[in-house]
């Protein structure tokens, strides 16, 4: 019975197995990125970057048609350009990161829309730019896995300065000059993972699989390592449960995954061990030595 509900769909249909593999790869790389975004109070940056990437991918499509690499490359290029330009402005002028990012992503979006409409095609770009988690072919799956691998490797290299920059950027500046490069590398990872998410989840919801697990993790752990582990686990769990929900309930898969993550988030807000609401309303007895 339980086997029928939870496991049989994946045994019977290859597309379910592929979807699961894709979503796990996304979770492994995206969730840690989300944790750092959250710790640096940049959770909405993911969303802004997603909009910055779209035009690049659209231009890639216009130049060479429905070509996975052209679109990925275009998206990466637009994302990097926005990340680097806003980073440069933020670090060298009075304007803060969020404001300069907003400026550049809006410029990128406007440019993209202009170029697309100048070509005058009315093909719904959403269908073209976004993949579908249910239709992962070998090529897409490899791109996702490759990007996830690169992300994890780069994360391993920049992990220490990244953590220090999260908790005490001034200290990092006094002991090392790794701050700026680390930040840039991190933004590059954000871009890569967003492009990844587009291929897999098929909508702007890609951002959701990055940010929601980080939010969940915040309520269960105080240290970064714990948060990352919980974020990855809850992202993968949402992916799996979302696919099962989509299979039995007929909900579109991308939204189903994010909705499951949202439920986990609400549960965490209420019952979380760290500053969950219930915990605050009914604090336990003070422990006395």
């Amino acid at each position, binding site marked *: 019975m339980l086997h029928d509900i939870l496991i049989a769909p994946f045994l019977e249909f290859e597309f379910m197995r592929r979807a699961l593999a894709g979503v796990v790869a996304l979770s492994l790389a995206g969730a840690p990125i989300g944790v750092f975004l959250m710790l640096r109070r940049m959770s909405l940056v993911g969303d802004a970057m997603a909009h910055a990437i779209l035009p690049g991918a659209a231009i890639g499509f216009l130049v060479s048609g429905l070509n996975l690499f052209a679109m990925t490359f275009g998206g990466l290029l637009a994302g990097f350009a926005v990340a680097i330009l806003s980073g440069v402005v933020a670090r060298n002028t009075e304007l803060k990161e969020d404001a300069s990012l907003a400026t550049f992503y809006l410029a990128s979006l406007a440019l993209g829309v202009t170029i697309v409409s100048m070509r005058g095609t009315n093909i719904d770009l959403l269908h073209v730019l976004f993949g579908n988690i249910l239709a992962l072919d070998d090529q897409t799956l490899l791109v996702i896995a490759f990007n996830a691998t690169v992300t994890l490797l780069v994360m391993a290299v920049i992990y220490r300065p990244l953590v220090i920059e999260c908790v005490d950027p001034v200290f990092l500046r006094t002991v090392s000059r790794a701050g700026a490069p680390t930040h840039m590398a991190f933004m590059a990872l954000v871009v890569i993972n967003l492009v990844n998410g587009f291929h897999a989840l098929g909508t702007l919801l890609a951002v959701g699989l990055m940010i929601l697990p980080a939010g969940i993790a915040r309520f269960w752990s105080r240290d970064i390592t714990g948060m990352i582990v919980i974020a990855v686990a809850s992202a993968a769990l949402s992916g799996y449960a979302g*696919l099962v929900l989509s299979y039995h309930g007929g909900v579109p898969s991308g939204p189903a995954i994010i909705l499951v993550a949202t439920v986990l988030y609400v549960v965490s807000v209420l019952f979380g061990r760290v500053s969950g609401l219930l915990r605050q309303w009914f604090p336990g007895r003070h422990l006395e030595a």
Partner: protein
Amino acid sequence: MRRICAILVAVFCVASALTPMRLRAEERIKVVATFTILADFVRNVGGDRVEVTALVGPDADAHVYTPSPADAKTIATAKLVVVNGLGLEGWLPRLVKSSGGTARMVAATDGIVPLKEAPGGHHNVDPHAWQAVPNAKIYVENIRRALAAIDPASTETYRANAARYRAELEALDREVRAVVARIPPDRRKVISTHDAFGYFAAAYGVEFIAPLGVSTESEPSARDLAKIIAQIRKEKIPAVFLENITDPRLIRRVAAETQAKIGGTLYSDSLTDEKGGAPTYIDMVRHNIKTLQDALDK
């Protein structure tokens, strides 16, 4: 090039001087059709009396189209707006109103008995009536009547053009029936991404099964996909089809999991440009029936 043509036509008109009221090329009647297939009908009936613009151009999708200010301008200067009707162009009445034009509007599907739409879509009836060739004749008749009402001087021309085109459509209809008759009855079923072929199916007895609803906007769930795969395996459906407008990756996945043949491209909602496989309606139907035959014939 167009100007040279225009001059030639004008010279010809003056030279022949059969009717003094002949419209010169600049006075062609401006007609706006919402998409390319309607535009092709109008062109065939109107001939060189009309100048046709399609709002939704080649290879684009009328379901998710959003009008631009240039379109409003086109409509504002038009004498006649030809729409499909049956709920396909939900955005059009607002556009006509806001463009401030005085164009007459005609629904080319007037008089067609609409089919109920497949479950899961957004319209109440299936708007894709043009896929059955007998319906195309009704489209042509409606368009002829509308053109004659606007330009009574050329009534005879429209009647002759429409009669000639109707004969072509009748030949096309016989052609389609002949091809379908050659396919064994138990193999007359296919999967297609976009169930725009309800009228085709009803007219010619080829079953179309779609993994998505009628509108291309809805996203499939894992359950939909699993159902369709299970169905193909169970009923041994021989072929699945890509279309020119929806996500081909989805269909490729279904094909990979069922060993059904991927049957090439069927054109449903729009014609292609000159270089593509279906620049006119007749080409489109011919292309579709040939593609079906290749996939379903042993």
